[in-house]
């Protein structure tokens, strides 16, 4: 079944067309890669789907509902949650507090208990869920550390932990492997795989070809803001247009 559909998506910035009529359909439970050379419009596509930018034209349909142009927090409320490039965390806060932020939609304490019951909101259900998420990402030993003290790979995992705490049914991962060493990459691949096993649909933008070929069920390739190709990793690897987009035109080169 189709979870997310992008129809004729266009995003312009002051004269530059970053995304130019992209169509994309993501099926439930798959790991879908979105790749393309630098400047192909992948991150812009992400930003439009997640609600950071409104589209200039076209539609984003999530579970049959038109969500184009909704603010990010409303889209998150529908179960579509994104992560960010680099370490977008509250570095000054503790690891478990970061995960608690992700619990925002699922912990609405009433004003009275907020004022009178000492620290109640942090207890029981929240604690359980936070600890479960931390265990999932193998962060439980860092629970009380400041986010800034974590090694890089663990910071990236914490970014995903915050997203998972929001109990999404689709996660958009924005370059989760960037800047990682091979060991961290292997670990992260295992985590993404485990996320899918929880029934979460995953759309990821990535430059690391090894990771993306090893992980994705299907891959969509963009070039110059347009759809270029789609298929399994093997099909994409064999696609002449994709090779050309990445390595440059052979005609021009010769």
């Amino acid at each position: 079944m189709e979870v997310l559909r992008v129809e004729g998506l266009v995003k312009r910035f002051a004269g530059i067309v970053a995304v130019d009529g992209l169509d994309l359909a993501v099926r439930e439970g798959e790991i879908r890669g979105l790749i393309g050379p630098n400047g192909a419009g992948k991150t812009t596509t992400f930003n439009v789907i997640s609600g950071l930018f409104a589209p200039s034209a076209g539609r984003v349909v999530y579970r049959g509902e038109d969500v184009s142009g909704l603010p990010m927090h409303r889209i998150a409320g529908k179960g579509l949650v994104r992560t960010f490039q680099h370490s977008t965390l509250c570095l000054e806060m503790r690891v478990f507090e970061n995960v608690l932020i992700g619990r925002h939609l699922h912990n609405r304490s009433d004003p009275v208990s907020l004022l009178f019951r000492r620290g109640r909101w942090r207890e029981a259900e929240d604690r359980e869920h936070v600890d479960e998420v931390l265990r999932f990402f193998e962060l439980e030993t860092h629970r009380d550390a400041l986010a800034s003290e974590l090694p890089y790979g663990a910071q990236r995992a914490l970014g995903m932990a915050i997203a998972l705490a929001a109990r999404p049914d689709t996660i958009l991962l924005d370059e989760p492997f960037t800047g990682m060493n091979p060991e961290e990459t292997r670990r992260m691949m295992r985590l993404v795989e485990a996320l899918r096993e929880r029934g979460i649909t995953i759309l990821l933008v990535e430059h690391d070809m090894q990771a993306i070929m090893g992980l994705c069920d299907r891959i969509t390739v963009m070039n110059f803001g347009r759809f270029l190709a789609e298929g399994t990793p093997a099909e994409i690897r064999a696609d002449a247009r994709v090779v050309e987009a990445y390595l440059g035109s052979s005609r021009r080169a010769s």
Partner: protein
Amino acid sequence: MPETRALRISGALALAAALVALPHVLSFSQQEILVFLVINVLLVMSYRFLALTGEWSLGHVVMMGVGAYASAIVSKRLGFPVPLAMFTGAAVAAVVAWLLSFPLFRMKGFYFLIGSFAAGEVIRLLWKRFRDPFGGPKGLKRIDELPDIELGALQIDFFDPVAYYYFCLIVVVVSLWFLFRVERSRVGLTFHAIHWRDNLAASVGVDTRGYRTLALVIASFFAGLSGTLFAHYVGAINPNRFSVEEMVYVLTWAIVGGTATFYGPILGVVLLTALNEVVFRELGLEQARPLIYGVVLIAFVVFLPRGIESVVPRLLRVGGGLSLSGGRRGT
């Protein structure tokens, strides 16, 4: 940790006793200063509450003024009893802040700062322009004071600064308790998240603009409340009392004390008021107050940007390790 708890309780009791005894060791004029100090504590603490979301406003003293004007007008014109007028004044400040949030929260950071300044000046110009009901440049005079209380042998005249000090103390302590509880709740965590990474907060479903508005409205309510405490004690207010010069004092208190902890701004306002009233008054330098505050502000920004609160943990560790930590750590 029963010892820590006992230590905390005895510390709180000692502080309470000191606050109750304090006016009795002061002269009349110092008692008046004490009243203003307590009012200013509420003002700067409400300012810090807004700063939790990362937004710094230059209109906060004007919101204090909105509370003062509204309270004065409903008590004079509509005959509201003073305590009800005070609550009404604070509520009007909250409503005005809510209305202003629509244009202002289209902006963030520096632009919000300038926008809040402009919005504040517009309000001050309205007070100056409309003699009815705001009294024009001369403002409002003969604002009702709190009615005396007579309960048999107990007679309280709120014209007496000691009595008014106790009244303000109760109002301020309850207000600070409220602000503290909200900060320590899930809502406070959300404010911090918006401060540090508003996109991250939004990505997991936080309505960042809604929460910024909530912080502004609550902060303005208590700023307005401090204004009503001021108006009904002094009995006269005018537009210049709520000018940007006063705003700079509030900023200085907050920056000198630091805003990361709950006690930081209180330290700032208490120490600077003591410095101002004890040292400068003795030296006859009161007229130079804006100059001195400017120098102090620059000195702190350069040499101790995180405020006095940032050296407190070190002092306490030396002094035996009593934990006073009120708010969340971080700058």
